[in-house]
């Protein structure tokens, strides 16, 4: 009986990471009605930019680089958690600018555009950093393992789950408890009324897309030390992200979080007790839920049903 407890804990921590990966994707689909297939590539870009900033050759003038590298790794890592998403958000701005012509049209246009953007970003990553693998250095305080219940656990895994839970909480506060969140939700519900109230809808959409991009980049930085950094890591992220939002229900914040946890539990438990089913289990879960509830657990009619 007690043998299962480590796997439940593992499943929940993994689930929080899935929820974090899906968060930015969920916001853009739910609030902008746009399926951003570039989410995975932005996730990868976040990891690469963070690796470049924390690595031995930061892209800075010699003197600045010297000062930057003199900082302890912990400080550099903390600063990178903020700086890298901001840098990646510039790419998000570019994508959103290109997407403007697709608003109000068949969602397929946005889908194809973001698919193209994903390909471009992945190839640019290959051009700049090559095909080799990289490791994202993390401070020693969150590295290594600790002993608990006669098993060694990854310190970083719990740190990552904690960060994921914190970011999920902050995003919820922003969306549910601020006027910005209320405006964004109103814009998603009825853009004409929001425009009639004098709110700049273009700017609002840009802000949502940039915010979603930054969340993708943060997820990439957090997950990179576990998955490793390689050009196609974005594909590994976008598939579970899509699965989580469909399972939770498009547009539902807590649906995505609960779906992330369910998927994590499913993969974690299958990994321990029916290992060959571990990846397949998440797809079986999706099929099982969507068969009985096409909109997902807490979904409403959305772009996916147009």
């Amino acid at each position, binding site marked *: 009986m007690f043998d299962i407890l*480590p796997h439940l804990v593992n499943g929940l921590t993994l689930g929080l990471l899935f929820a974090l990966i899906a968060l930015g994707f969920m916001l853009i689909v739910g609030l902008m009605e746009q399926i951003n297939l570039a989410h995975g590539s932005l996730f990868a870009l976040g990891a690469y930019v963070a690796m470049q900033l924390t690595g031995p050759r930061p892209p800075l003038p010699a003197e600045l680089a010297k000062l930057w590298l003199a900082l302890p790794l912990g400080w550099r890592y903390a600063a990178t958690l903020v700086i890298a998403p901001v840098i990646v958000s510039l790419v998000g701005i570019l994508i959103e600018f290109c997407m403007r012509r697709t608003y109000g049209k068949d969602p397929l246009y946005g889908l194809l555009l973001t698919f193209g953007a994903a390909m471009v970003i992945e190839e640019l990553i290959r051009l700049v950093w090559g*095909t*080799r*693998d990289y490791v994202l250095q993390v401070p020693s305080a969150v590295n290594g393992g600790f002993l608990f219940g006669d098993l*060694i656990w*990854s310190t970083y895994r719990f740190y990552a789950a904690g960060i994921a839970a914190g970011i999920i909480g902050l995003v919820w506060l922003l969306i549910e408890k601020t006027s910005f969140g209320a405006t964004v939700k109103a814009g998603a519900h009825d853009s004409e009324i929001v425009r009639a109230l004098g709110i700049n809808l273009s700017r609002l959409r840009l802000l949502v897309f940039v915010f979603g991009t930054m969340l993708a980049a943060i997820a990439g930085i957090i997950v990179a030390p*576990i998955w490793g950094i390689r050009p196609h890591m974005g594909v590994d992220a976008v598939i579970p992200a899509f699965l989580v939002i469909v399972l939770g229900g498009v547009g539902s914040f807590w649906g995505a979080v609960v779906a992330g946890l369910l998927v994590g539990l499913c993969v974690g438990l299958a*990994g321990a007790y029916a*290992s060959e089913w*571990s990846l397949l289990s998440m797809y079986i879960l999706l099929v099982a839920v969507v068969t009985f509830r096409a909109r997902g657990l807490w979904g409403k009619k959305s772009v996916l049903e147009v």
Partner: protein
Amino acid sequence: MASVIGGTGSFFGPWKENHAWAQGAKPIKLGLTCDASGQYGNSGQDDFRGIKMAIDEFNAKGGVLGRQITFITADTETTPATGSRVAERFITREDCTILIGALHSGVANAITQVASKYGVIYMNTNSSAPSEAGENCSRVKFVWDGNGTNFSKASVKNAVDSIGKTWMLLTNDYVWGHTTSAATKAQVEAAGGKIVDNLLVPQNTRDFTAYLLKIQQAKPDVVATAIGGDDIKALREQVAQLKLDGKPAWINNQQDWPDVWGAPDSLFGVFGTTWYHKLQLPGVADFVRKWQAANKDGPIPVPGNVSYNGYMSTRELLRAIERAGSTNNVKIIKELENLKVSATDRMQHFDAYMDPMTHQMQQTIYLARRNAKPADNTDLYEIISWTEPKSAADDAAPGKCKLAPYEQVPTVDS
């Protein structure tokens, strides 16, 4: 670069261009089935570097039989369906009479099916499932890498005797993983050990925590992995994170060099290889220098086992054509079946030979572990043993491999 452009040019070019060559010294055109994306994308490109180096060397001295060697390459995406499609296109539309390359045994097997149908010689450079020279062997296919059984035979008995009898298997859930783990299981049981569990790992698994917890709960003496490509990279990072690289002991069947480069700190356990760029043998340093000159801007600074196998297989193919004095497929096959290469020429410790019953190159198998005192930042391995070919030979393969008679092989000539 010129060859790449040449190869690509003919790919996009009109069909009649190929016929124009028939008038004079028509080049011999090779189809390079190297992955550029997917689980073995990095290794596939490393394979390509070795193959291309051999081609360039022959072209520099006038080609083979007075004919230049050209090639075309396409990404097989580490996907059997794509591998099959690429092979079919290379043979039927691009006029390739020989195919070279593969890492993933599923891709290699798919290419083999196509090559066998047309009688086209296929050099399986780096796919190491025992089934490649066993039940999936072919008269037209030659396997150049050591396989899971070879590496198991070189490592398991000693590990059972010196480390412990309780073993757990961690197996990539596809043909190479299964056949390699089966070989390990047989060796463990023959040596008096016991397999307590076999955890199947789906391809593209990125999170191994559930498996690592399970291993800790089971407390085996040894974990034997048959995990490849990007999956083994992720596993290594997570094992290193948890500092589980001491107990249990880890036997990683084979370690491909491109999977090591970029994350040397997480290189754990004992693992197998067929070659290392710091082997203290004649010719190695010179080969490394030539490889570096040919790959100045590559992502990996030294040749590893994957590039070595690509080079050796292509070199021996071109030599076999020279010896045969012909590009007739059966004549080349017979030359390759009688192939013997001296240790010096192979840059290994023992002479190597092609097994005519299975078409697998029998060669020196090395065991290595992480080098605690590297001479430079590429010196990641410490070679701890080398096993001669006959001691590591896969004894079961000849019984499983049924080669078609020569007269049933369709005639192919360049």
